[in-house]
């Protein structure tokens, strides 16, 4: 029997990765930067999280029996908080590197972003193996803390597992998306950010610090995307590791289009993408070939949305007007 509740629970768990990635990318794109480095940045977030967790584990007192750090002494709060902070730090640093190249040095955004992806994936592949082999047990233990939902979830039956059974990062993803949406649409800062992305020359004339906004938006956006990488490792894979994370990064970039540059729509979009992503696993008797065709669906749907948006020509659904263009005050 197809268990719809556990299916949806899995989908929402997975959606957090896409949601972090796309929220981060939306903030970046709203400032006029098409950051194609998101897959690399998500990798770096995952690496940063693992690195922070390994630092925390190695700081634990050594247990007498196994002569390894005593995992039973792990503080759930610190075991979650430290990786989050290091993931933000690593991913933010990549964002800063991107901004330096694309804002200050006015390099081509596509080229810079792709290089960030190459570099981020390379660094992660290079450093993750030694960390992972040394601290695997600790990561598994920590991922339990990451995946712990509200204690009363199990007493509420299906309702509880649908709404309260997720790990902290899933709720954080939704909160971040809602906050980002409110900031973009309701605050002065959001208005300025959108102005910078739409028409930097006019924004500059109105006294908005274009470079500053672009820097901050890209760095914050990257940090948020980095949390997606952390979610992938600690929540979805339960502390293990595989390389499919960059595919998740590209899907997040696709999701930005799907959500038409709106973080609140991105919440629904990410759940839909996650459903499409895991659906082949839940269809009984599906062949390998058909499964491959189903993997195509999220990208195909994105293309359709992209086409729909461009057919419609509705102003508020369009990409930011100066997306992909560097701004130099004196260039006309």
């Amino acid at each position, binding site marked *: 029997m197809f268990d719809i509740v556990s299916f949806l629970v899995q989908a929402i768990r997975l959606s957090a990765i896409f949601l972090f990635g796309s929220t981060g990318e939306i903030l970046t794109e709203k400032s006029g930067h098409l950051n194609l480095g998101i897959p690399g940045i998500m990798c770096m977030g995952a690496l940063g999280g693992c690195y922070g967790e390994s630092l925390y584990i190695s700081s634990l007192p050594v247990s007498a029996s196994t002569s390894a750090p005593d995992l039973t002494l792990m503080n759930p709060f610190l075991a979650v908080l430290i990786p989050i902070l290091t993931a933000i730090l690593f991913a933010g640093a990549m964002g800063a*590197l991107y901004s330096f190249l694309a804002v200050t040095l006015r390099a081509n955004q596509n080229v810079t972003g792709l290089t960030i992806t190459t570099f981020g994936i390379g*660094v992660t592949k290079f450093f993750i193996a030694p960390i992972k082999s040394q601290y695997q047990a600790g990561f598994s233990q920590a991922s339990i803390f990451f995946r712990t939902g509200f204690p009363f979830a199990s007493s509420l039956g299906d309702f509880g597992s649908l709404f309260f059974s997720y790990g902290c990062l899933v709720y954080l993803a939704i909160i971040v998306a809602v906050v980002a949406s409110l900031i973009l649409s309701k605050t002065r800062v959001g208005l300025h950010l959108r102005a910078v992305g739409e028409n930097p020359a*006019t924004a500059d*004339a109105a*006294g908005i610090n274009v470079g500053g906004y672009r820097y901050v938006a890209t760095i914050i956006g990257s940090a948020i995307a980095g949390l997606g990488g952390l979610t992938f490792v600690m929540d979805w894979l339960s502390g293990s590791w595989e390389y499919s994370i960059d595919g998740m990064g590209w899907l997040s970039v696709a999701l930005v289009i799907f959500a038409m540059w709106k973080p609140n729509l991105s919440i629904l979009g990410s759940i839909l993408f996650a459903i499409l992503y895991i659906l082949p696993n839940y269809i009984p008797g599906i062949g*390998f070939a058909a499964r491959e065709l189903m993997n195509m669906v999220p990208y195909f749907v994105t293309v359709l949305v992209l086409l729909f948006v461009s057919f419609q020509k509705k102003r508020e659904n369009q990409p930011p007007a100066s997306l992909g263009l560097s701004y130099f005050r004196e260039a006309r």
Partner: protein
Amino acid sequence: MNSHEAVKKEVREPLFHIAKRDGIVWWKSWLIRLCAILIAFLLCGLLCVVMLRQNPLKMYASMFAGVFGTSRRIWNFLQETAILLCVSLAVTPAFRMKFWNIGAEGQVLIGGLTATACMFYLGGAGVPGPVIILVSVPLSILASIVWAVIPAICKAFWNTNETLFTLMMNYIAMSLVNFFIKIWVPTGTGNLPPLETGRFPVIGGQKSILTIIIVAVITIAIWIYFKYSKHGYEISVVGESANTARYVGINVKKVIIRTMVLSGAICGIAGLIICQGTNYTVNADIVSNRGFTAIIVSWMGKFNPFYMVLTSILVVFLQKGSSQVLTDFSLTGDGFSDIVTGIVFFFVIGCEFFISYRLIMRGKNGGKTDSGLSFGLWLEEKKRVLREKRGAKRSAQDAVPASEAGQKDALLSEPDGAKESLVHAAQEIDAEGSDGTEKITFANEELPPDTAADAAGARPDEAHEVNGEASPTETEGEDDHV
């Protein structure tokens, strides 16, 4: 109107400001790029010491040995370079018209898939090899063209974002390849073993020779296409400004679609070379990110086919060399070549800034930095002058106005006589104010002058003209030093 030159001494000038270069001698630009690559290599050596605790000289030696060590490695290097160059040549026409096609990965993959499909089905049906090649070449090229032209049509007619569209097409292509492999190899490893019939002929005992010939022909053909054909010229015009192109009667839609057909065709050839000329099989990773690397190769080579030969040699050298480093130092992590490539790319990307812009340091060029001065800064000064002017009106009623030329000389030779010069400046503005032009824009302090002036668009033009009256010619001679 030289008054503000003097006032600038008062305003805190930033440490440096940035101005666009008018042009740079070609050897200087290549010197900058070479320096960037050298610095990147030094940094890689430093990382080698810090991360791997190895002698960096050993790393460089290992890189060279990995690329040029044996004749097999050299042939392999040439083959890889030719393939990467082919993909780069494919993306270049589109980039020259600022169509950001990042879907070369998928376009090449579809070409390769079609070629492999021809080998698989026709070869399986007993069709002789030469016939397979005759069928597969046009079919593969056609498949790649279709893959490339779909986003182009959407861009041309509905202005769909081509970067995102082509990116998505990559993944659809990958899923298609996985789908077909699952059909062809339903059980077992899930890898299609190299197919026997329908391979490209091997010339001179090395399969790379044919590849190199094909790619060399394409390189020269593309260069001629850009340099001497009307199409090439139209591409450049569309790249500069689609509106200009429209104005001079170029059919922009046609140019976009036609260029992407060309792009797709070359991608198809690259797919043929990869699948029918090198690996004789296909999988989703067979293009191994060349579609993305090609973008960087093409961009680093300034979209010039001959420069791109150099950049693709550099990139393949980095990748081959650093994977040899990995083997020689028996490292576990396999991301090392990506790290090295990434660092070199960062430096090359960064150095372009110093080729197209120059920094003007504070205090350099005496009082002649006007041409590079940003408009906002200039406006700040202007406001200041106006504020001073009001004071000056009251306090300096009896000052004798100096002649304009004499005033300028005095100001230049006497940078510290700021107070005095302010008075002069104020008077001059006062005098100018009577003819109206200046007063209209700036006298109204309530309205933020930045907004009004900058948004008007034409204003900064005017301002610069007035501002830099004499200076462009004066500073031009000094532009070139880096």
